[in-house]
């Protein structure tokens, strides 16, 4: 049995039902409602793939400004890649299609689709005509790469403004060509015509196809996430949007399910050698002796070594794998730098404080606590966690005398380019980075180290080199998410009101190495070559709008376990420190609700002050069918205990609440997150279906971290090296149902969706666990062994 397939015809929501309308474009139904619990407003008459907007040229769009005032100097010469050049952002092809250059990357959540929708919207062309190019340092500017769920929030801004500016210039060009005032022109799918006389027209292709604007935009002089530009044109009002708000499918699904293209692991360069980097199996170890004769029996295998950086190379990949396994190395370590595994959190409590920061300090918590009728206190523990990406990182570097080319799966390819240039001490202009999608990084995983390793080896050997890690490199050697201890205290007065709230985190820094690899001091190879580590000291506090009369949110960071080249160095993992902080703070809020005899939803709604927060809380509660049930004693005699719990948080403008409904198997200790209800407000929704999948994936990944994930270690080594020693969620643990309420707010700018849901899942599950068992689970992960041991007490 075969199925004729055309990816463009695939409707991600309900293909069979919508297909005919989709293709013919005759539908006027609001097809988004088919997605279920969407609260999305969309103009009727929009065609998904052929979606385009027809709008008269507004006065604003044709008004002159300081930037790009007159017609652009159309020319065949493309100006240099600079933020202030319009041509760095958007180009009209000879056939009238549009290429937009995005300085971030998409990791499989469809950011390129959303950016394409925004560009199509501003330029008045059909979405089908827009191509997003991303990740090549020679064609896109450094917008910070994938970072902090800012792909749309920050990443779309300059592209939206540039597309609007391009449209303004095109309109002026047409006005001159047709000799008709711009105000009397309209644009439909890249064709500008005179209102009331469609025959009098000119297309984008005719005006500039294949040529360049040579027009300036105003750059805010920032690089990375904050980079922005604007022209004289005003972007459209959200009320005019026709393409933004549609559920359009991803571009990268078909090649993945057919295997017709490759990812970073599949980059092959003629003449390349395969390398495996060998890192110390004992923490802080030094390679005292390397017996090169031990790999003599492997054809072409060679040792590459400088200081404490050690690798093997071979022409065939399997030979490199064998050589890495067979090479005899004597590793020496001076100390056992890690605490006993069971004493990790005691170490965090006892260690000296490197820095304390009081981020929120309202009123006087100490005084209020003294006068309290009742004080509630609790402490919560979170482990080290690994990115443990689906495949260990791979990278290819070709270091030539005058030109260096790198292929990287790092989510920040421009910074990888900078790091390679700095490591090899060459001008950054001589390095070109090609980003190729890799195993999902979800933060700074092992990809940044892999590309610097490859560049180093390629330079030493004068040949192109492909580095790939083995499984233990991806699990034991990636930068980790920090372990933490969170202490919370609250004072309750005679009326049951919470009058003081004190939440303090003690932890390892969230980023002992930076979240990007632009400085070799933040890389393993740099540290192994003897560069002094930079170190970074920071953490974070809960993000919510609870108004307590006296409130303190603080953090304290303790010193690293090893200063240099540590397998336990920390950097960003998806929603950096959001999971650990909110696991504690939103569980403590639940404890306060019970302590004051209030329903957990009602308690949150009572103290949360931001209207959008309250709306999200109410939406999650309503959709999940939440009914207050007080503190009445529940029947907990059965083999399976069930419970429900809620948690909510803000994240950089986005607000999310999750209701978890779980089952606890008393015999096995297994927690099953059976059903989740999510209410999600990230401002204006660009692509509802893409948003929905992003939320689902983030939720399940966070559920995995909540229940299973914990880096195991001994005083002298990391013991989590594979999927057995670092278990993650399996499909039998996947939720039966994830019900998502999307709250669209066209009046609010779009904010991130890649990380917000992640941070509320742990507490929602823990609160459901309390509802089910009557016991607080204040330590993550809530794995079967820990659950079983805690359940013996009931």
């Amino acid at each position, binding site marked *: *049995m*075969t*199925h004729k*397939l055309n*990816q463009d015809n*695939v*409707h*991600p929501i309900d293909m069979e039902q919508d297909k005919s309308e989709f293709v013919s474009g005759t539908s006027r139904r609001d097809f988004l409602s088919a997605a279920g619990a969407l609260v999305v407003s969309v103009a009727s008459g929009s065609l998904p793939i052929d979606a385009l907007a027809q709008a008269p040229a507004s006065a604003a769009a044709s008004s002159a400004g300081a930037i790009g005032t007159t017609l652009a100097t159309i020319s065949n010469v493309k100006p240099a890649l600079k933020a202030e050049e319009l041509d760095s952002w958007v180009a009209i092809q000879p056939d009238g299609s549009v290429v937009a250059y995005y300085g971030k990357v998409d*990791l*499989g959540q469809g950011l390129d689709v959303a950016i394409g929708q925004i560009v199509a919207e501003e330029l008045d062309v059909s979405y089908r005509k827009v191509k997003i190019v991303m990740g090549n340092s020679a064609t896109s500017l450094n917008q910070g790469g994938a970072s902090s769920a800012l792909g749309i929030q920050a990443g779309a801004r300059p592209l939206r403004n540039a597309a609007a500016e391009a449209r303004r210039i095109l309109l002026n060009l047409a006005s001159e060509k047709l000799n008709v005032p711009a105000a009397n022109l309209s644009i439909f799918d890249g064709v500008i015509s005179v209102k009331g006389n469609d025959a009098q027209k000119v297309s984008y292709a005719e005006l500039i196809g294949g040529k360049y604007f040579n027009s300036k935009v105003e750059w805010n002089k920032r690089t990375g996430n904050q980079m922005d530009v604007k022209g004289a044109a005003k972007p459209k009002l959200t009320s005019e949007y026709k393409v933004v708000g549609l559920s359009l*499918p991803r571009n*990268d*699904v*078909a090649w*993945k*399910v*057919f*295997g*017709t*293209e490759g*990812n970073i*692991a*599949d980059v*092959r360069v003629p003449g390349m050698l*395969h390398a495996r980097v060998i890192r110390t199996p004992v923490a802080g170890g030094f390679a005292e002796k390397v017996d090169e004769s031990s790999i003599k029996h492997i054809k072409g295998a060679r040792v590459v070594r400088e200081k404490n950086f050690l690798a093997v190379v071979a022409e*065939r*990949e*399997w030979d490199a*794998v064998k050589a890495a396994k067979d090479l005899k190395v004597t590793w020496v370590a001076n100390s056992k730098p890690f605490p006993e595994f069971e004493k990790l959190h005691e170490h965090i409590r006892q260690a000296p404080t490197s820095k304390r920061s009081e981020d929120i300090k309202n009123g006087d918590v100490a005084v209020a606590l003294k006068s309290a009728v009742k004080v509630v206190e609790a402490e919560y523990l979170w482990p080290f966690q690994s990115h*443990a*990406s*689906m*495949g*260990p990182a791979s990278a290819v570097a070709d270091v030539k005398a005058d030109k260096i080319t790198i292929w990287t799966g790092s989510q920040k390819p421009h910074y990888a380019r900078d790091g390679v240039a700095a490591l090899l001490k060459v001008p950054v202009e001589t390095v070109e980075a090609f980003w190729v*999608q*890799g*195993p*999902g990084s*979800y933060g700074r995983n092992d990809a940044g180290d892999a590309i610097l390793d490859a560049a180093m080896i390629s330079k030493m050997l004068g040949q192109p080199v492909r580095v790939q890690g*083995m*499984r233990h490199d991806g699990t034991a050697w990636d930068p980790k998410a920090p372990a933490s201890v969170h202490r919370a205290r609250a004072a309750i007065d005679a009326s049951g009101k919470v009058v003081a709230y004190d939440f303090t985190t003690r932890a390892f820094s969230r980023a002992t190495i930076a979240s990007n690899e632009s400085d070799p001091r933040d890389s393993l190879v740099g540290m192994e070559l003897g560069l002094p580590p930079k170190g970074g000291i920071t953490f974070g506090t809960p993000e919510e709008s609870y108004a307590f009369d006296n409130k303190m949110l603080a953090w304290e960071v303790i010193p690293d376990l090893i200063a240099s080249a540590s397998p336990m160095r920390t950097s960003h993992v998806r929603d950096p420190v959001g999971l650990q902080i909110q696991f504690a703070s939103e569980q403590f809020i639940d404890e306060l609700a019970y302590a004051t005899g209030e329903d957990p939803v009602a308690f949150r709604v009572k103290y949360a002050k931001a209207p959008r927060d309250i709306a999200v809380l109410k939406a999650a509660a309503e959709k999940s069918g939440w009914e207050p049930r007080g503190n009445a004693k529940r029947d907990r005699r059965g083999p399976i205990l069930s419970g429900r719990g809620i948690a909510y948080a803000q994240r950089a403008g986005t607000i999310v609440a999750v209701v978890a409904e779980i089952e606890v198997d008393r015999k096995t200790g297994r927690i099953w997150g059976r059903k989740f209800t999510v209410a999600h407000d990230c401002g204006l929704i660009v692509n509802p279906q893409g948003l929905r*999948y992003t939320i*689902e*994936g983030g*939720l*399940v*990944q*966070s*559920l995995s971290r909540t229940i299973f994930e914990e880096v195991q270690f001994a005083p002298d080594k990391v013991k989590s090296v*594979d*999927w*057995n020693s670092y278990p*993650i*969620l*399996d*499909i*039998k643990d*996947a*939720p039966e149902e*994830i019900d998502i309420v999307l709250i669209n707010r066209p009046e609010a700018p779009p904010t991130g969706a890649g990380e917000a849901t992640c941070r509320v899942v742990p507490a929602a599950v823990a609160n459901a666990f309390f509802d089910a068992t009557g016991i607080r689970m204040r330590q993550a992960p809530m794995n079967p062994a820990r659950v079983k041991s805690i359940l013996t007490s009931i």
Partner: protein
Amino acid sequence: MALTPFQVDGKPVQIDSDPQMPLLYALRDDLKMNNPKFGCGLAQCGACTVHINGQPVRSCVMPVSAVKGKKVTTLAGLGTPEKPHPIQVAFLEEQVPQCGHCINGWVMTSAAFLKKNPKATDAEIKTALDGLKCRCGTHVSILRAIKRAQTLMA
């Protein structure tokens, strides 16, 4: 070194290698195929899954010498954009893969399973796919896709 003749996606191939070299390296390094993927090299994740004479096998731990004379099918041989396997249609329609590094394992394993058990229940599907890893958390859409594939194959 030894010569191992076998078939890949219907074409005869011959690999000259260490007989203990895993099949995965023959497919990826010698034959330059983009799937299967290396995920762990320990048969713990499934990213390297291929069919050998129709049976799903983790190619990262299968010595190439063991497939002598056998028929190896990879993701690219399971179906093509022109002639897709119903599982591929379903995974596409449900927009399953995010990073996609694991997807080979899910498609190949579920294709082999559904061939034998077209009417499998949810519980049977979960049992059959247990042990496959996905780091992006797409498990819920994977289950949706397999249900859809069952309908397509009915």
